[in-house]
């Protein structure tokens, strides 16, 4: 009860601060929309898709997963600013739950990602993308779990390195192979065998496949449940690890 209350307090404050910074919201929505408008049109011929809608069914899931990964991984920067401003320290001397300090922030990230996802989905509808609402909600669940994991990990790493200069290259180094090996922008069906083999070890590749299957209306595809399972386990692990960083006495 106290934990839920604490999480709510932190979540509400973080959301309030996010809403006060309209530039952030603009950037967060503007970028994916640019992808949708300026990159997606190339896909129909490139993927040899029969219709624009078919191309969107492949591309939009990838774009959403991409947003979830990147949106989450770079949240640590905000935390470093808070560390520097003494806010984390001020919270840590109160009896507030340490897990709530993390989850309140990560949930804010999940919600802001979902807002982005809804905007993109609505736009894609204009381009004749069609998806059954139940499947869409499952896809959103997957995105939420991804964002929860990546933002928690990002916060944990931020608490460990405590400097933007270290966090930026670290996150880029992680994000780039993850991105390339997950078939986010183009499906890995085009990839040579060895590349597909390596990608199998990338959990996000499973997540992308799962979300694509959902957008294709293929709920019976094993990838859906496998993807959700893998990401859920990783999200829990990420949260547990990061919460420990919050609890641990840092210098």
């Amino acid at each position: 009860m106290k934990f839920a209350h604490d999480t709510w307090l932190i979540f509400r404050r973080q959301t309030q601060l996010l809403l006060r910074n309209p530039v952030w919201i603009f950037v967060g929505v503007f970028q994916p929309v640019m992808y949708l408008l300026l990159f997606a049109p190339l896909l129909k011929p490139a993927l040899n898709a029969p219709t624009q809608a078919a191309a969107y069914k492949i591309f939009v899931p990838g774009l959403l997963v991409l947003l979830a990964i990147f949106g989450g991984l770079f949240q640590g920067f905000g935390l470093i600013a808070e560390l520097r401003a003494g806010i984390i320290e001020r919270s840590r001397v109160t009896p507030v739950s340490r897990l709530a300090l993390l989850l309140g922030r990560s949930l804010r990230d999940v919600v802001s990602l979902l807002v982005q996802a809804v905007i993109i989905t609505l736009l894609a509808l204009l381009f004749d993308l069609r998806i059954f609402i139940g499947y869409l909600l499952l896809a959103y669940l997957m995105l939420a779990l991804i964002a929860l994991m990546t933002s928690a990990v990002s916060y944990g790493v931020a608490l460990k390195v405590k400097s933007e200069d270290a966090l930026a290259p670290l996150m880029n180094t992680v994000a780039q192979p993850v991105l390339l090996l997950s078939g986010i922008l183009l499906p890995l069906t085009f990839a040579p065998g060895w590349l597909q083999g390596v990608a199998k070890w990338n959990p996000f590749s499973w997540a992308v496949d799962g979300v694509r299957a959902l957008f294709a209306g293929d709920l019976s595809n094993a990838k859906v449940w496998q993807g959700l399972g893998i990401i859920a386990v990783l999200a829990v692990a990420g949260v547990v690890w990061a919460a420990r960083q919050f609890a641990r006495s840092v210098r």
Partner: protein
Amino acid sequence: MIETRGLRKSFRSRAGKETKTVDAVRGVNLEVAEGEIFGFLGPNGAGKTTTLRMLATLIEPDGGEATIAGADLRKDPAGVRRRIGYVPQGGSTWDDSTAREELVLQARLYGIGKADAERRATRALDAFQLTEYADRKCKTYSGGQRRRVEIALGIIHEPKIVFLDEPTTGLDPQSRAHMWDEIRRLRAEGMTVFITTHYLDEADALCDRIAIMDNGEVVAEGTPADLKREISGDVVLVGLDLSATPQAAELLDTEEYVNKLETADGGGLRLFVDDGATAIPQILRRLDHAGLDLRSIELHRPSLDDVFLTKTGRSLRES
């Protein structure tokens, strides 16, 4: 209120391939009484902040024990947290939120209900003369205003003890004087205040008792007055006409409170006494009684810097 025994902390720092262990705090024993302003005086890097952070449960000690307001630091850090307030050195407010929002949130993080949190915030804003700016964003505040918000945040849950890390660093003289008044007000309300400072005048003017820290150890402890007296007592300069000087010297030399007496060139006396404040009236009475005219009387006190110098061989101003 606070009692520590052998509190220790060392950090490992890596410089290139070499790992060095730095003993930041090497066994600190302290006793802080209820309702006093206790000051930790020392140069930067002396281990003041590290000790404070250990007492505030922010870092775990490597060794030693502490009891804070009845709670054991090692066994019950959560109990310590409920009883203390802590105001860090570098600030603790969000740029984009207002003082009122910060105060309400902080109170609620301590588990205080919404209505009560709002009442407390209003009261704190009033007490710290912040009502006028209460609903403006923190980034618009002056340094002194922001520091006042931070202190209000540290005591919103009415702790028994509040730790203030360098509360006046970076403030202009006027804000500084204002801050001293605020700190004295906390004491008047019954709070025990524990501050760190590297300002000699602050330790001297504000603190009831101080511990001088250097290189991870407490090198001296006591009231500022006691510590200075330990050094050499006070010096009283008595201004007299040349003609009156020998007679005055004869009179005062036999007084028991005068430890040493020197005749100044060109008239006047230099008296070494234990406590100038009690010696001066006696000197005045003695001279008046003998009908000797006094031109001036001055009290020179050894400063805390003299104390630091005797204990460490360095001046605090230099380190």
